[in-house]
């Protein structure tokens, strides 16, 4: 068990977001978390890497409960993770090469030549060779996400987290990102956890899907079982039906 989440609760002010979330992730698993917008998916993802601390419950990474660790104690734990943010979160002041090689440059364990070589290698994996000197502002949304992914995989983490990887992209760019995620998981043999409300993407990149509903895990199934489910909550969500009555009339 690489990640174990036990009865995690989180509120922002008077608003409860997570109300007792429990699940675990095996090493090498490809998991997708789906749920309504504002339902706490990103909040849950941020708990896994210690960006947020739960009000109650435990988050165990490799057997260590990270909920009680301070920011400095979390640094080595986070070294096991790579994360792709919704807006890519590239550093504006650095070019593509510096963004991707950021962690290696900071750690100074690898020579500058080796860093340049590894940057070139991951840029090839994400299909952006030759963009080393470009600034994030010069890149399209899809390219920014690819660079974000390259930055997350350059140091070969054990676990990759994706926060809404296809949000804001056109269908073709979203398809390319889906394929890229699948390719990265296969090539680097990492554990992958993606949060999305894009059902096509969820179906393709996950081998197991968790559905978050009203602050709890409502379903934990394979994509095939989930998309065939007759449960009204799951059915309405995966088919995008706001009002079942209206759907019948149409």
């Amino acid at each position: 068990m690489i990640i174990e989440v036990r009865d995690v609760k989180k509120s922002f002010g008077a608003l409860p977001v997570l109300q007792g979330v429990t699940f675990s992730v095996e090493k090498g698993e490809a998991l997708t978390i789906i749920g309504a917008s504002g339902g706490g998916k990103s909040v849950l993802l941020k708990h896994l890497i210690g960006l947020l601390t739960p009000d109650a419950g435990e988050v165990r990474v490799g057997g260590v409960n990270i909920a009680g660790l301070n920011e400095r104690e979390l640094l080595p734990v986070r070294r096991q993770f790579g994360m792709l943010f919704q807006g890519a979160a590239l550093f504006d002041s650095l070019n593509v090469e510096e963004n991707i090689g950021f962690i290696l440059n900071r750690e100074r364990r690898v020579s500058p030549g080796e860093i340049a070589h590894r940057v070139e290698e991951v840029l090839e994996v994400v299909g952006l060779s030759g963009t080393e000197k470009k600034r994030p502002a010069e890149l399209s949304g899809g390219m920014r996400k690819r660079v974000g992914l390259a930055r997350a995989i350059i140091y070969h983490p054990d676990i990759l987290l994706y926060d809404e990887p296809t949000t804001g992209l056109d269908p073709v760019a979203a398809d390319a990102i889906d394929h890229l995620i699948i390719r990265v998981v296969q090539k680097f043999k990492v554990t992958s956890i993606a949060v999305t409300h894009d059902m096509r993407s969820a179906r393709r990149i996950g081998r197991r899907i968790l559905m978050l509903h009203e602050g709890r895990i409502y379903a934990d199934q394979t994509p095939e079982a989930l998309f065939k489910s007759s449960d009204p909550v799951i059915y309405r969500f995966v088919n995008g039906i706001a009002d079942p009555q209206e759907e019948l009339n149409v």
Partner: protein
Amino acid sequence: MTSSAKQFAFEWFEGLGRGALLCREIFHSIFKIKPVWHDVVYQMYSIGVKSQSVVTITGAFTGMVLCAQTYLEFHKVKMDTATLAVVSVGMVSQLGPVLTSLMVAGRVGASIAAELGTMRVTEQIDALRTLATHPVDYLVVPRFLAMLLVMPLLTAGSVCVGIFAAFVVGACLLGINPTYLWYNMLHYTNMNDVMTGMVKTFVFGAIIAVVACDKGLNCPQGAEGVGRATTEAVVYSSITILISNFFLTLVLNRLLT
């Protein structure tokens, strides 16, 4: 006490507590983790070199106006030649450090808060954390060290230009004897005044860096949040500088005399 005054006081004390925790983290980072000097030098350029013109102009005109005003009063009691001594002591121990710090708080404090605030709302600070980098090590420490190193230099430059500008105004424009003017300035400005001014610049530099970084790192979401953090960084650091200047003056006078 009105509710807005209460809220202001509450936020000021809350900021003070956060600032204390940030200071602890900064000193931990400086002494336990090696600062990246390349980043410090870059920040010294950004904070120091780019602030030079504004600080020099402030020093020059403050010295000139102080000279003119002091002369108008001293001339009545035939103490014209003491004019530059008053300007010098005032500039070295009070006006130089305070005005330089206020100008730097406006220019650099706002810029730091806006930059870090934007990084926070665009999740760049979270990205840093996921890349196993403590934001204090990468963002705060270089700015803090750069501020400590450049503030005394900026203040010294501002004070020298101010005194020289006052000398030119006194000797050339107001017709005061330049020899006595210069001699009295050297005679009445002692090392304690210089030490007082220099100690203040370190403290004020630290205040600007800590307040601006704190406001940026804890910036509320959205463009409005960044705007608010920027304004607060300037207002809170300026007020803290003015308040601490009073207490520092009392303490340093007691310690150095």
